[in-house]
């Protein structure tokens, strides 16, 4: 009973993981992008359509990321170029993205696209306990195992990663030191959009192989919350994503075992947990883990 739940947790948590890592990169650069939900929906639709018409799920997956990045570019345009308020712009992006995906996707509801199937990793799948949980998944899940690691290496050990972090903590100093602040922020936004789009593509190409409206069902918002839970660290994001994936899968499984608890109350679990986790993290971390200039636009200079 526990093993299938854990396997389901990994699957359910993977799109959230993609989106969370992406949002970490964005926020590290000092930009708050609340449009993750919209980005995921756009990525999901783009991925689905490209896979549907080209027959290649991999192309679809990449297309999901690409369109996610482009869509996130709107946020960049509004906030970086036009100095728009980052919070409201992100919200607008969510409203636009979810409705756009529904609007353009309506003719395709109920259609299937070629997707990713389960891929067993040869020897690793045999390991007791870990095998069935981690190594009997599809390709996209395996890719997602590497991402947090790469993100961590990038942020900690590369020159660009350092530049990104400086731009988020103290853009004035960074600018004085010769860093092109807007450039890094654009990079952060595009990276976040790309990964968010990949997360969305996962939903329409691997998690299910169908298109329907409302595929992301609030996962984008959970990703935004998880960034805080993870203290903006990729490693902890993994824990958070799987925890949430697990909770979402758990309440369904609890029902399957024949509980008498009203399902509305069970459904509250993921959201209630998010609040608890958030309060705990913020209280512990005192908010100092956040990039200092998060959400503040840099005024244009001559």
């Amino acid at each position, binding site marked *: 009973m526990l093993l299938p739940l854990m396997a389901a947790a990994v699957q359910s948590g993977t799109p959230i993981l993609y989106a969370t890592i992406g949002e970490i990169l964005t926020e590290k650069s000092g930009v708050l992008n609340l449009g993750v939900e919209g980005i995921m929906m756009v990525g999901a639709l783009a991925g689905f359509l490209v896979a549907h018409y080209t027959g290649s799920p991999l192309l679809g997956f990449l297309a999901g990321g690409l369109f996610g990045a482009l869509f996130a570019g709107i946020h960049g345009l509004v906030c970086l170029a036009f100095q728009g308020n980052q919070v409201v712009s992100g919200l607008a992006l969510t*409203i636009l993205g979810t409705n756009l995906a529904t609007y353009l996707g309506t003719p395709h509801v109920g259609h299937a696209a070629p997707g990713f199937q389960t891929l067993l990793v040869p020897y690793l799948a045999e390991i007791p306990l870990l095998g069935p949980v981690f190594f009997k998944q599809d390709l996209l899940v395996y890719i997602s195992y590497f991402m947090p690691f790469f993100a961590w290496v990038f942020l900690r050990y590369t020159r660009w990663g350092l530049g990104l972090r400086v731009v988020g903590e103290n853009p004035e100093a960074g600018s004085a030191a010769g860093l092109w602040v807007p450039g890094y922020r654009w990079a952060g936004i595009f990276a976040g959009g790309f990964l968010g789009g990949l997360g969305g593509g996962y939903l329409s190409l691997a998690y299910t192989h169908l298109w329907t409206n409302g595929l992301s069902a609030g996962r984008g918002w959970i990703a935004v919350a998880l960034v805080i839970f993870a203290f903006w660290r990729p490693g902890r994001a993994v824990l958070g994503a799987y925890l949430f994936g697990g909770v979402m899968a758990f309440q369904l499984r609890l029902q399957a075992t024949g509980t008498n608890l009203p399902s509305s109350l069970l459904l509250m679990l993921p959201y209630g947990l998010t609040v608890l986790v958030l309060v705990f993290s913020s209280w512990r971390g005192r908010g100092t883990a956040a990039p200092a200039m998060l959400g503040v636009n840099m005024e244009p200079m001559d």
Partner: protein
Amino acid sequence: MLGINITKKQEPSLWGSCFLFVGAVVLSLGISALLLWMRGKSPLDGIVLLFKGAFGSPGALEDSLVKAIPIFLCSLGVAVTFRLQIWNIGAEGQFALGAVGATWVALQFPTLPAALMLPGMVLVAMFAGGIWGLIPAVLRNWAQANEIIVTLMFNYLGILFLEYLVYGPWKDPVSFGFPMTKEFSQSAVVGMIGHTRINWGVLLCLFFGLAVWIFLRYSRLGFELKASGENVKAARYAGLPYERLVILVMIFSGATAGCAGFLEASANLNRLQPSIMVGYGYTAIVVAWLARLNPLYIGIASYLLAGLKVGVENIQLELQVPAAFGGLMEGLFLLTVLAGAFFTKYKISFRRKT
């Protein structure tokens, strides 16, 4: 070599703001028309139908007003919080709790006369909504928990709580097991004005709108709030620390949204059921941002956005356009306003680089 000078204006101009608003509307309509064309529908027909459906007949004007009432109430509260840079996304959940509170009164005391019943419902609705706004505020103050996420999660929690009640303890015994409460007794229903479909809740809108206006104009706190610039967190207002203000405005916001919930349950549905949730809380965010903290502008913007929703139904009926089109326009509109605000805040001039 041409260089661009961007200098911040002292104060955004009024003409600029109007122009921006109109420009944003035009741009959004343009993009929406393009999207219509992409789906093979005639863009011009679509736009015309939109306006006709929203404002093109006395029936339509009435319908838009009915829909504007809850949007206005929610927006008023949200606008107040936005002014303090508190991003209250929770109007939807506060709306739900308000409806629940009002329903509790109606179901617990079905025999009360209207003179006691209705004020009772309003008060409990405001109380319930207020609590749903208070908790995120407290969490923010005490644990620095990001209110955007907390209020958003509270939306889900509030709606699920409503569903729990309606599927479970409050389910109507005569409605064949469908998730809805008993029908409210007549004394719990807010009536319509004359033969129109506009309910008396419009008076509540006037009341709150006026209250906020008076508050902003004549009280020290209100004056300071209105006059302060972008950086609101540093100062104290009327001797009150920022944290205290956070609590106050979140309670107020929750209360007004709760009021909207009460009106929808009482006047329009005459009972509580899950379909009461139609997203007014989210539209309120759009309105609050567009109209800032001016009750008159909030009223106008609420009416326009209500009209948008009503008009979209007309396009659906005549052109078979999906319902998501309306939300799409809302999002576009907000983005264009955000981007366009740049031009009212900054002066752009070109100069030759030597």
